[in-house]
């Protein structure tokens, strides 16, 4: 009995570690391969190996060489600008709106909540045709601010729901006792509700930042000139215009964006998780 339990345990752990090692390889391999490709001399991928024989920094230099069709630095800044402003705009609008929905019973509240629910189901994709048509006719091309406003608008319904759910779980007694002490609505919001909603605020911030960063659809409709591109469009064009020819350069560009983002994510992971799990149970 004792020995079968021991062998059982051994077998289980053996398979556990085997699986985890396999997953580790599966995850690390593509990432390392990209790192390797970015240091490989030449443009061709055929000779690419994870540990290049003659590592070179050429591809990194090429990113910033200032070619007309490859303005990596500019794309990087564009992406950061759009993501950061969308994140801030989303955090501000969403927390105010969620506060209104969570704490006030006003006329039209039910209808507005229904509207938000409906809008979060209709993909923002539905707006694509309109934007494409109108942007062409109105000449609203290449405007980052237009894009930011569109992103914020698109982020509002879902995130308001998440935030409202979280605020609903903060006891009303807190507001009421503050009100008795003479605190105004705004003060209650800034000093009580908002600090307590920090985990969900982190989730909203993450959504607001990563949404625009990964978006290809809306940005490819509005941004047309290489100097207005964001990273997804720029890198996509880089890879697809002359497939293979500039893949190593793409790899270098991919590394430069992935490493800071990945590190930020891993560091802030804890903040998101409590919000995400809470959001999951609250809906």
């Amino acid at each position, binding site marked *: 009995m004792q020995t079968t339990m021991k062998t059982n345990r051994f077998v*289980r*752990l053996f398979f*556990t570690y085997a699986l985890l090692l396999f*997953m*580790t390889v*599966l*995850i*690390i391999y*593509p990432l390392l391969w990209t790192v390797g490709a970015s240091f490989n001399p030449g443009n*061709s*991928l055929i000779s690419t190996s994870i540990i290049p024989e003659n590592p070179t920094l050429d591809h990194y230099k090429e990113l910033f060489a200032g070619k007309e069709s490859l303005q990596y630095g500019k794309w990087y800044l564009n992406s950061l600008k759009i993501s950061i402003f969308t994140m801030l705009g989303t955090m501000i*609008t*969403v927390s*105010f*709106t969620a*506060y*209104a929905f969570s704490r006030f019973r*006003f006329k039209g509240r039910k209808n507005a*909540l*229904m509207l938000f629910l*409906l*809008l979060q*189901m209709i993909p923002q*994709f*539905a*707006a*694509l*045709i*309109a934007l494409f*048509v*109108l942007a062409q*006719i109105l000449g609203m091309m290449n405007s980052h601010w237009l894009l930011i406003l569109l992103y*914020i*608008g*698109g982020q509002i319904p879902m995130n308001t*729901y998440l935030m409202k*759910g979280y605020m609903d779980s903060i006891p009303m007694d807190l507001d009421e006792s503050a009100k008795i002490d003479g605190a105004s*609505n705004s003060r209650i919001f800034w000093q009580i509700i908002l600090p307590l909603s920090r985990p969900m605020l982190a989730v909203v911030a993450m959504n607001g930042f*990563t949404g625009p960063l*990964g978006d*290809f*659809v809306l940005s490819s409709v509005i941004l047309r000139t290489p100097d207005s591109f964001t990273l*997804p469009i720029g*890198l996509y064009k880089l890879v697809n215009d002359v497939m293979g020819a500039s*893949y190593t350069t*793409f790899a270098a560009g*991919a590394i430069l964006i992935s490493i800071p*983002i990945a*590190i930020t994510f*891993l560091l802030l*992971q804890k903040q*998101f*998780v*409590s919000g*995400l*799990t809470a*959001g*999951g*149970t609250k*809906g």
Partner: protein
Amino acid sequence: MQHRTIAPLLSIIPGLGQFYNKQWVKGLVFLILAGSFGVAFGDLLNMGFWGLFTLGTQVPRDNSIFLLAEGIIALIVTAFGLGIYYWNLKDAYKNGKLRDENFPITSLKSEYQNLIGQGYPYLISGPSLFLLIFAVIFPILFSFALAFTNYDLYHSPPANLADWVGLETFAEIFTVDIWRSTFFDVLAWTVIWTLVASSLQVSLGVFLAIVVNQKEVRFKKFFRTILVLPWAVPGFVTILIFAGLFNDSFGAINNDILAFFGMDPIPWMTDEKWARVALILMQGWLGFPYIFIVTTGVLQSIPDDLYEAATIDGASIFAKFKNITLPMILIAMAPIIITQFTFNFNNFNIIYLFNGGGPAVAGSTAGGTDILVSWIYKLTMQSSQYSLAAALTILLSIFVIGIALWQFRRTNSFKEGA
């Protein structure tokens, strides 16, 4: 006649009912509001509704698309106007009723304070609402309206006018052979893609979370960090990396890995079936870490006593999993799992960035791996079939909303949320 009847009747011209109720200032405000509304938007409404009905009558003076846009703005403005008008009527009725019942009419001062107090939620959610109308509602209405026109390359301004055609485009989707077969092919793959890719990423995430969470496993922190990596790297970067790895001729998967095992290269990009397999595997890789993280959070919140009690009762590992772990995970994560499905249903990036929805299918505007959203994107951006794309968007929205409503009702989170 009672005051409650006369006042709203007079308020058909905004403000008069309030005058009748001797609320002079308020009446004046309503009157001025109505007057300025008429002056400010009169032309827009007049022109907008004319344009909305006709979509223009003369080339090149009229631009159907501008007229449609103006018409929709006119509709939105009208909705607001009607809202204020309704408020005016209701106010006249309310105060008339107070007079009928011999109550004093609320004074201007208390009304003002009331307005400030009640106005607070409107004030703080106003900017969001405005943004929503501008950035989401207006474009969606516009797209939907296009579905009922014949707007395409041959009916484009400035040379041509577009016109309302009712449900014709929808009928064509189901009657024109090439469209019908493409539509059902794309829809079938969209559904398969959604189900298989989402199930794969969810089950992989849950399974790995349970595996890592075993008591005896060491280096938990290390493994968790590794397993979260695919989530931490921006998705579009990973997809483009995989597009290189899977490339038929120079990709490492064919050249290094399969060659190492002595296998023939697989046409990942050019064969429809293999492209689909590659996409599903990639989505598994990309999507499981999010589920993994959340599941880990749920697992850590399950109290140890439950397992200890079960162990004392002699439950096997499998029984513990089936009766404790799994139900806990499913209850806590139902909404998140549902969002994975809706996310994949609309997962444009992976399809388009991998190989543009390809390989191309002869005689069809959709490629072999195109899902509904990427097909709509191509119809809009590449072949200018705007009305067809818009009609498909409506069908897609109905589909998604239908399933989501059904799910929400099942999980009951709808009641909680509202």
